[in-house]
């Protein structure tokens, strides 16, 4: 017993169960943040005066440490996954919005004019011209958001075992099983690297016109 992948009973999950939980707790917030970030960014592009205040508010939110954010939310959402996921969604939003704004803004005026001349309405122009051209910037933001979100889930351990793979850290000290901590750190890192690689792949599929060289970001 007590093999590398055997977890103490109080974790209440198998190793793979925790991996699944971790992926969900880390990725769902980024998805939500993306869905919110797209319209917010569009608003910022459309009305330039919106951007500085949005940037200001998000910068302040970003500077709140995750643990404090979790603890304050306990009052509203209990010691639950939701409490962990809301701050992660906020942090992701902060990373995504500037990336998308810059991406959409980088679309040349001539291109937009050409689209308009071809009879594209604003919606079609957004979906078929602006978004694809901004895709690399959006995905660059997503890569940062996903990796940091997956890494921050672990802190959820401190608010009543809501940290998925992070929960192994507590048991590593309690039961004097350092291997559990090694496992937790490596698996979390691997999950992040895998998600990152997946996003690079998605970018290549979405933007076949881009050069194949790995962009450093």
């Amino acid at each position: 017993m007590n093999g590398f992948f055997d977890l103490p009973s109080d974790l209440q999950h198998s190793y793979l169960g925790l991996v699944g939980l971790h992926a969900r707790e880390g990725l769902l917030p980024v998805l939500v943040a993306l869905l919110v970030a797209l319209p917010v960014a569009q608003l910022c592009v459309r009305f330039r005066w919106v951007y500085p205040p949005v940037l200001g508010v998000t910068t302040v939110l970003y500077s709140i440490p995750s643990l404090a954010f979790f603890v304050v939310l306990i009052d509203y959402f209990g010691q639950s996954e939701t409490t962990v996921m809301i701050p992660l969604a906020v942090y992701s939003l902060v990373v995504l919005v500037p990336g998308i704004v810059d991406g959409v803004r980088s679309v040349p005026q001539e291109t937009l004019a050409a689209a308009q001349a071809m009879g594209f309405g604003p919606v079609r122009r957004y979906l078929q011209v602006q978004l694809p051209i901004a895709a690399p910037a959006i995905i660059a933001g997503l890569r940062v958001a996903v990796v940091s979100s997956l890494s921050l889930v672990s802190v959820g351990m401190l608010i009543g075992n809501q940290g998925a793979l992070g929960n192994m850290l507590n048991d590593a000290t309690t039961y004097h099983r350092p291997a559990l901590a090694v496992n937790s750190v490596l698996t979390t890192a691997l999950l992040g690297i895998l998600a990152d690689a997946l996003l690079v792949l998605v970018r290549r599929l979405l933007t076949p016109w881009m050069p194949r060289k790995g962009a450093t970001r």
Partner: protein
Amino acid sequence: MNVLNFAHAFFSDSAHWHGYDGIPTRLAEHVRYSLEALLFAALIGLPVGLVTGHYGRGGNALALIATAGRALPSFGLLVLMFIWIGFGLLPVMIPLVVLAVPPILVTTYEAVRSVDPSPVDAARGMGMPEARVLFQVELPVALPLILSGLRTAAIQIVSTATIAAYVSLGGLGRYIIDGLYQRNYEKVVGGATLVAGLALTTLVVFWAASRITVSPGVRRSS
């Protein structure tokens, strides 16, 4: 808004202003941890980024290292290092440095690599040695971006240094962890406000630093 009430209660309690658990002590500890971590990270990230950027090589390897560094969970690394090393500052420094090196390294590399090649070639043509090309031509032009990398790293360190409290160290995280276990939201909100304030102060410091150090010519063109 009860968050404001909590913050007000925390800051108006005179007991929070002196002693080993007072705001000045905890703030000083937090600043110390953050500065040390930033210093170590810069000592690693800047030279490597400058040299690789200058020669324009190793970009893929750096990207890989950066991704790996970002993917390592700071909190997990802290607990693991604590188990391996025990009490002290080192188990806290390691995750903070690992967190801070990628942004410094990658932006420095990008900053130097993307410097307009014509002045660089001109400098070489004038017979400048490589070291002077790097420090007198490339560095001044790349400085704004390099500073932005340092700024990102500093903000992340300030916010993440709170976890030091989990392994019994001080810093502003003390208020957040203690508040969690004592179910004292005043402390949590007060601690979070101080950390956020410190992070915003960091932003201002870097803004000021870039005003002072970046050459006016570069500032105008960027």
